[in-house]
């Protein structure tokens, strides 16, 4: 899998003369261990990296049940696509018509959720700036398994019109496992519905294995992520 991904993507050396030495990136203030006084006057010691995050990496989730049960589960998963309401790029603007009466995605079991913990579908609605990529990875990692990623718009596929921008990533599948792409700039609500419908079919067929791909190739994805996120100041896995 890793080899295949490597092959598909035109690799370029990370270091080039123009780039100056990295700034010395300190760990975020919030992540430093500290002693905090609670409102009731108690002093407690907090080490965020220990206390807030899981130390283990992601694991592959294997079907634990018989075929029939698994199919039933997949049917249920397919009919409950809960999208994380994280508008990462311009495509987010077509999500609103989609979720409102005219296109009414709710009738297809699709709804918006405000937090990653409640969502199983991350829609990357267009280009990702490096700054947003960092948040998108955290959001993705915080989502429960099984989870899916849909790339929306040509800019997620091969950079789109930001192909020469210094601040956006070009191929989304380099940084997170993508189950489906919907092309367009931007795709219309109908195209999104079509995409979600196709995703449902994939899930029902048990082929939407992005999360497992992520777990299997975690190191590869991390390397790619860290290659572009130059100020990596967070735990490697944000679960």
């Amino acid at each position, binding site marked *: 899998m890793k080899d295949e991904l490597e092959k598909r993507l035109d690799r370029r050396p990370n270091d080039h003369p123009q780039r100056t030495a990295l700034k010395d990136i300190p760990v975020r203030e*919030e992540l430093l261990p500290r002693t905090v*006084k609670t409102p009731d006057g108690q002093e407690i010691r907090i080490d965020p990296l220990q206390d807030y995050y899981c130390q283990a990496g992601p694991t592959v989730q294997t079907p634990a049940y018989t075929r029939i049960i698994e199919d039933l589960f997949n049917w249920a998963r397919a009919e409950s696509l809960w999208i994380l309401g994280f508008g990462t790029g*311009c495509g987010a603007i077509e999500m609103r018509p989609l979720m409102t009466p*005219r296109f009414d995605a709710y009738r297809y079991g699709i709804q918006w959720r405000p937090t990653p913990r409640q969502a199983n579908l991350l829609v990357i609605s267009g280009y990702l700036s490096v*700054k947003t990529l960092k948040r998108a990875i955290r959001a993705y990692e915080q989502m429960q398994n099984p989870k899916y990623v849909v790339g929306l718009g040509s800019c997620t596929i091969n950079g789109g*019109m930001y192909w*020469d921008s210094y*601040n956006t990533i070009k191929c989304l599948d380099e940084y997170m496992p993508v189950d489906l792409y919907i092309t367009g700039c931007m795709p219309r609500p109908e195209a999104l519905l079509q995409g979600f419908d196709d995703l449902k079919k994939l899930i029902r067929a048990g082929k939407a294995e992005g999360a497992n791909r992520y777990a299997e190739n975690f190191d590869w994805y991390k390397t790619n992520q860290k290659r572009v996120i130059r100020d990596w100041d967070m735990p490697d896995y944000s679960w």
Partner: protein
Amino acid sequence: MTEYSNRSQYPQARADGSLDIDLTSGKYLKLWQGPNHPGITGNMSVELTVCGDEVVEGKTHVGYLHRGFEKLMERRTFIQCFPIVCRICVPEPDFNEYCYAAAVEELAGIEVPEKADWIRTLILEMGRINSYLMYLGGQAGAFGLGVIGQWTTYARDLMLDRFEELTGARIYHMFIMPGGVRDDLPEGFDQRMEETLQEIESTLQDVYDTMFRNAVFKKRAVGLGYVDPAWVDEYGITGPVARGAGVAKDVRRDQPYLVYDRLDFEPVIATESDTYARADVRRRDLLMSVDLIRQILARMPRQGEVMATLPNVLHWKIPRGETYVRGECSRGEYGYYLVTDGSGYPRRVNVRGPSYTHAMTLLEKLIVNVNISNVAGLMVSLHTYPPEIER
């Protein structure tokens, strides 16, 4: 102005003007609102320092949508810039197209056919309606009135249908080209537009009844985010935020462009200068746009060209010069500062969206003392779109 604060808890200012906030004291909590947060206007975030449920300091963080347009345009020819500018502001892309086209036309000395000016005006007003409808949904949603957003998004979608049949696209229209507009109005457009306008008016009446005459909304919006008229110049405030403060600032009237000098309208103002007043200014402005569209369709010439003859755009060079072109978009003054150097590429483009000042300095000023639950409502009331800040 409602008094929310209990100043005894407040941090003191240091000598350099920043606040003396000691997170380890336990008095303060750092709370990030956004970028992934339902109460945020687009992909941005506000770093809040709260004391209890009251904000003592708020810092706007942008850059999540930065694509470097101003840089990208420097390596695109003048015509190649035309499709990318609309991406700078998603909910109201047409202003980018217009301002860019007008700046290029001015520096290149291109005369735009009159009919194209009318169609451009029509499109800009249609875009304004879209943007306001989206705003109303957002503003209501920020205070828990979810249904308004359902209605306005539906109404907006009807307008998107009109956009689609006129321009060939729903969101990024890429219709206002340097030199004019791409095409004429389609057959039977007026009729369908009138139907859409009536639907929008009816929706707005519903919105008025359920939002503006709603005790909940009034309770939360009145008095929130007071903007002193004196700040208008100091903070570079434009558009409905300024008009809500009683300052009748409207580029359409002050420095008429396109065909605004041939249309009848007066800038909408309110004096209370709070979230409610601004919402109401926008609602009335929206109705005015409905009226303007009717005026445009009644008065525009139906014959003639819609596009000037361009030189071969593949090697179109524009002599050295600089200019600034502004227009009144739904959030305020939108402007393009274009510098050319005689080559086939812009030397420098600076896009100045109204959110640049509203979401940064003004929001950071207004957010202090606000209850956390009202932060979203306050942000929406400034009607800011982050991509036009960072571009």
